[in-house]
C-alpha cells in the first residue's frame, strides 16, 4: 500500500531541496507520512523514524546490507556495506582488528594528537580560520590516512578524493524510468577512483612482499595462508568506503560539534573550561546533525511489515538516521543542540551487523581534535561575518566554519 498512496507533496520533493536542508522535509514526513515511505526523487523508500530505522537496522537476517544505485556506481559492488553472510563476515574480520576499542586505545593518542597540534600550529597565531578546511577535515584525513598506510598521500589529496567520491555517492536523483538523472555527476568519483588506483596499486605491490603495521597491509595479509594475500579487487570497494565516509565524517562531526556549541554560548564556555564534557558534546552533536544523514540502505529479503507499513520482498529502504535522531517521539526539542539533554541512544553510527565498524576510532579522533583545538585556542569565537552553512542530505555538516580569536 505504501508505494501506491504517496501524496503529491512527497512526489515533488527534489534531491536538491534535500541537500539544502532535509530537516523540515523530514519533520513533515515524520508527522504526515508513514514511517517508511516511498520517495520518488530517488526511487527508493526512506525510513524516517527512530523505531523504523532501529527495527530495520537491527534485523540483519531479514534486512540485508545493500548499496544505493549511486553508491554502487561509485564504489563498485562487493563493498562491506552491501555484502552479507560469510563474505560480509570476512570483510568485517578484515577491518575490525585495528578498530577494536582496546586496540585503538593503544595507538590513537600518539597518532592523532601530534597531527592536531601540527595543523593548529599552522594557523593558531592568525586570529582567524575556516575550521572545516584548515582543521576538521585535515585532522580527520591525516589520522585515518596514516593509520591506513597512506602517509605518502597529502592531506589535500585525501580531502579531494573524499569530496569527489561524496559528490558521486550522493548523486542519487533517478528518473521515473529508473535511470540516473545526472549521469555526468559520476565523473568526479570516476576520476578519484582512477587516481586512487594509480597511487595505491604500487603501495599494495610493496605490502604484498613487505608487510608492515599499516591497516592496509593487515587487510592484505590477516587470516590468509602463508604466502597468500587478499586480492586487491576484493579490497578496493571497501577501501573506497573508507576513503569517503571514514575520511569525511569525523571532520564533519568536529565542525558540527563546534557549530552546535556556538548555538549555546554558555554550554560552549563550559566545554572549553571542562574538557571532560567533550565526549558528551560529541554525542549530542552527532545526534543533532548526523554526519551520515541518509546514506546507507537495506533490502528486504522477503515481504514484511515495518511499523505498520507493508513492504514487498526486495524493497530497498534508505536509512535516514539523521531524521531518526530528530524524532520528536524520542527527543524533546530535537532540532536544538543541547549538551544537557538527558543522554538517549541515537543512531548516528547505525545499528546491527552493518553498524559502523569505526565508531570508537572516529569518536576518539573527534575528541582529541576538539581537545587540542580548545586547549590551543580557548578564546575561540564564531566569526559573525560568515553564515554557518550546513549542507548535504546523504552526508551533512557545515561547508565552512569561520572562527576568530584574539592573538
Amino acid at each position, binding site marked *: 500500500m505504501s508505494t501506491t498512496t504517496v501524496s503529491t507533496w512527497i512526489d515533488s520533493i527534489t534531491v536538491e531541496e534535500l541537500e539544502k536542508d532535509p530537516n523540515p522535509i523530514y519533520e513533515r514526513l515524520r508527522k504526515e507520512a508513514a514511517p517508511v515511505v516511498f520517495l520518488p526523487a530517488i526511487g527508493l523508500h526512506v525510513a524516517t523514524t527512530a523505531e523504523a530505522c532501529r527495527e530495520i537496522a537491527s534485523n540483519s537476517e531479514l534486512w540485508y546490507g545493500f548499496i544505493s544505485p549511486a553508491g554502487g556506481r561509485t564504489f563498485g559492488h562487493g563493498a562491506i556495506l552491501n555484502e552479507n553472510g560469510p563474505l560480509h563476515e570476512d570483510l568485517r574480520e578484515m577491518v575490525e582488528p585495528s578498530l577494536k576499542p582496546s586496540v585503538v586505545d593503544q595507538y590513537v593518542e600518539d597518532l592523532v594528537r601530534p597531527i592536531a597540534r601540527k595543523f593548529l600550529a599552522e594557523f593558531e597565531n592568525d586570529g582567524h580560520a575556516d575550521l572545516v578546511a584548515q582543521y576538521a577535515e585535515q585532522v580527520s584525513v591525516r589520522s585515518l590516512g596514516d593509520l591506513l598506510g597512506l602517509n605518502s598521500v597529502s592531506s589535500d589529496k585525501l580531502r579531494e578524493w573524499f569530496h569527489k567520491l561524496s559528490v558521486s555517492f550522493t548523486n542519487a536523483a533517478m528518473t521515473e524510468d529508473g535511470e540516473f538523472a545526472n549521469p555526468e555527476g559520476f565523473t568526479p568519483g570516476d576520476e578519484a577512483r582512477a587516481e586512487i588506483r594509480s597511487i595505491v596499486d604500487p603501495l599494495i605491490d610493496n605490502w604484498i612482499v613487505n608487510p608492515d603495521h599499516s591497516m592496509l597491509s593487515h587487510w592484505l595479509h590477516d587470516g590468509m595462508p602463508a604466502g597468500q594475500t587478499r586480492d586487491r579487487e576484493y579490497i578496493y570497494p571497501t577501501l573506497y568506503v573508507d576513503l569517503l565516509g571514514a575520511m569525511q565524517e569525523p571532520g564533519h562531526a568536529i565542525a558540527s560539534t563546534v557549530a552546535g556549541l556556538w548555538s549555546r554560548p554558555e554550554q560552549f564556555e563550559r566545554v572549553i*573550561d*571542562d574538557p*571532560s564534557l567533550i565526549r558528551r558534546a560529541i554525542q549530542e552533536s552527532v545526534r543533532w546533525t548526523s554526519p551520515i544523514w541518509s546514506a546507507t540502505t537495506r533490502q528486504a529479503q522477503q515481504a514484511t511489515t515495518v511499523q505498520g507499513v507493508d513492504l514487498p520482498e526486495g524493497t530497498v529502504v534508505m536509512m535516514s538516521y539523521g531524521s531518526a535522531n530528530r524524532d520528536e517521539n524520542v527527543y524533546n526539542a530535537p532540532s536544538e543542540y543541547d549538551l*544537557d539533554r*538527558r543522554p538517549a541512544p541515537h543512531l548516528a553510527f547505525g545499528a546491527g551487523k552493518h553498524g559502523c565498524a569505526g565508531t570508537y576510532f572516529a569518536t576518539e579522533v573527534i575528541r582529541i581534535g576538539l581537545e587540542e583545538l580548545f586547549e*590551543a*585556542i*580557548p*578564546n575561540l569565537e564564531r566569526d559573525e561575518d560568515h553564515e554557518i552553512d550546513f549542507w548535504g542530505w546523504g552526508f551533512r555538516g557545515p561547508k565552512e566554519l569561520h572562527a576568530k*580569536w584574539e592573538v
Partner: protein
Amino acid sequence: MGGVIPVAGKFTIEVASVKKSAACGGEQSVLDAFLREDIWVPHSCTQGTCGSCKIKVLGGTVDHRSSPLYTLSQEERDDSVALACQCAPVSDLTVEPINSFACDDRIPRHTLADYAGVIVGLEDIASSVRRLTVKLDAAMAFNPGQYVEITVPGLGVRRQYSISSNASDPSTLAMDVKYTAGGAASEWLFARASVGEEVAITGPYGRFGLHAAQDEEVIMLAGGTGLAPMKSIITSVLAGGLAPKVYLYHGDREVLDLYDFEYFRDLESADGRFVFRPAVSRGVQSDGWEGRIGRVTDLVAEDFASCKGMSALVCGSPGFVDSAAKSLKRRRMAPRLIIREEFTHAVPEPADQLLN
C-alpha cells in the same frame, strides 16, 4: 540487604569501585562520612554549589536535603545522581563518584576529622579583614590550599575558611576572615571572639592547590581574602621548588583592603622566582599608593601577551574567578590548567562586590 537490621539512623555506605565502606548517620552527609574513613571522593566547595562531588547512587536511597536544583537538576535526581556533600542516606547505599578519581590523582589525601581548637591570635590585618589563629589539640595534616570548617561558638552554624598558614605547622592554623555585615561568623569574630576561646574545627576539605612539581610558570590571581590559600601554597611551592616562577596578583578595592603587603614585598626581594603584583581598583594617589590601579583580572592580560604554556591558580568571589579565567583564556592559557576556587557565601553577595 536481607537480614541486616540497621541501627536507627546509622547506615553503611560503600564506594563500589574501591569496595570501601563507612558508617553514616544523623545529620552527617555522605561526603563527610567517606572522608572521615579516608575514602576519597572528589569534591571542592562542600556547599552544594560546585557539583564536583556528584555521585551515582547504584543501590539504596538518599535524602537530597538542601541540594540546590541549579547544581543537581530534577533529571539528575531521577537518574539517581546526588551531591555527596549535601545528601544523607535513608538506607544502606552503594555509590560511585561521577567525576573520575583520576582527575584528583596528584592530590595527597588527608582524613577528615574534628579538632578542638583554642584561639591564640586575633589580628586586624586590613580594613575589614581579621586573621584568626587557632591552636589545635592535634596536628591536622593538610595540603596548602585546603580549607576548614569552623563552628561558630554559641550558634552552631558552620563557615568555611581557607588556611593561610604553612602546612609545615599543622597544629596551628591561620584563617583570614573578611567582615560581612550581618554574617553570623563575622558578628562573632569581629565583636565577641577572644584569645583563649575554644572553637571546634573540622577539616581539611578541598582540592585547590599545586600538588606536584610542574614545568609551567604559575600565575596566581587572588581577589580580597582569596589571598589566604595562596599564601600557604606559595610557601610550599617555593620551598619544594614545584614551579620555576610564581606571579602573584592580589587585588582589592582600596589600599586599606590589601594585606600581607610587606610580607610579599620582602619575599619578592629575597626570592628571584617570586613576583608580586598588587593592585587596587579604586585606589587614589593621595593614599600614598604608588602601585598599580585597576582590576588585577585586567592587568594580567595587559602584562602577558601570551599565557600559553603557563598555569594559574585563581581564588576569589565567583565574579572574580569568572573574569580571571576569561582574561587568562583571552591570553590563550589552556583552561584545564586554570585551577579555580570560589568563595561560597552564607549570605547573598551584594552585586557591587562581585569584582574585587
